[in-house]
């Protein structure tokens, strides 16, 4: 069996740990200034169509060692389990097809920091998102 197929057979939680958990922390929090918190925050981005795409098009997400199926499951775990109350009420889960298309347009030609900052301002001002979103990028040391 190919490695990719084995990845797919693992649970979303295991895939999260192996592909994201080292930096983002076992429960979605590590060093908040150095790595963005996922817990109770990541869902805010799904208020914006651009933000929904952003989450799947981030280079480390798009290029992760996962199949489209596994990545869709992983993202839904991150958004709906770790995201907690930050997820907008009517949010639909990522579909395999959607993830497959999004990851083929990785965000490699933009300033990720500026793109995030711009969205975070909109989310805080218009969508009542927590100002904790601004902690990432503060001087980490």
């Amino acid at each position, binding site marked *: *069996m190919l490695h990719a*197929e*084995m990845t797919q*057979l*693992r*649970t979303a*939680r*295991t895939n999260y*740990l*192996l*592909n994201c*958990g*080292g*930096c983002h*922390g*076992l429960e979605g929090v*590590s*060093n908040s200034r*150095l*790595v963005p918190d996922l817990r109770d925050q990541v869902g805010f981005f799904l208020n914006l169509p651009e933000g929904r795409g952003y989450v799947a098009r981030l280079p*480390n997400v798009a290029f992760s060692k996962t199949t489209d199926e596994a990545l869709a499951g992983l993202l839904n775990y991150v958004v709906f389990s770790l995201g907690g109350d930050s997820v907008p009420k009517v949010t639909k889960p990522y579909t395999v097809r959607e993830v497959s298309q999004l990851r083929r347009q990785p965000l490699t030609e933009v300033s990720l920091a500026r793109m995030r900052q711009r969205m975070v301002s909109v989310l805080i001002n218009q969508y009542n998102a927590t100002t904790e979103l601004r902690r990432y990028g503060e001087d*980490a*040391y």
Partner: protein
Amino acid sequence: MTSPFDQMSERLTRNLARFSSRRGFLSKFGAALLVSPVFPLLPVARAAKGESPKTDFERNAQATDDTKCNYWKYCASDGILCSCCGGGHHTCPPGAEPSPISWIGTCLNPQDGKSYVIAYRDCCGKPMCTAGKSCLCDNSDRELPTYRASLNNDIIWCFGNSSATYHCSTAALVGAVK
């Protein structure tokens, strides 16, 4: 007038028909079919079941002494074992703090044959621990080169701490591979 090729192939075919029997072939083929399940350990069969062959580390791993480099949770530890420095394989020695950022891999437990998720956290904030050579490990199961930084063990993972000074390495079990 037939060509030499035709003659040769005719001779071959006739000899084949004269000296071999279909029954003979069938009985040998049947015997092979019967015997084949006795050899399930061929690499191909193992691969088909999704089991990857054991690494050199996994063949020599033990589950009793965590001050030795071949303790099973250290399958990708590259550094000085905290268990030789007054800490444990998942705890930092007094005065050192664990890195919140690490890399995460899997190791095979020789006792139950199952794989577990391991967080390779460094302990930071104290000068490098001085321990015997046997505590200096360089294992690399499922580690990737530095350009896949999130799965690399040459990196000092203390960069997320208040002090980035490296003291020693731990290998904390954080879950079963499910």
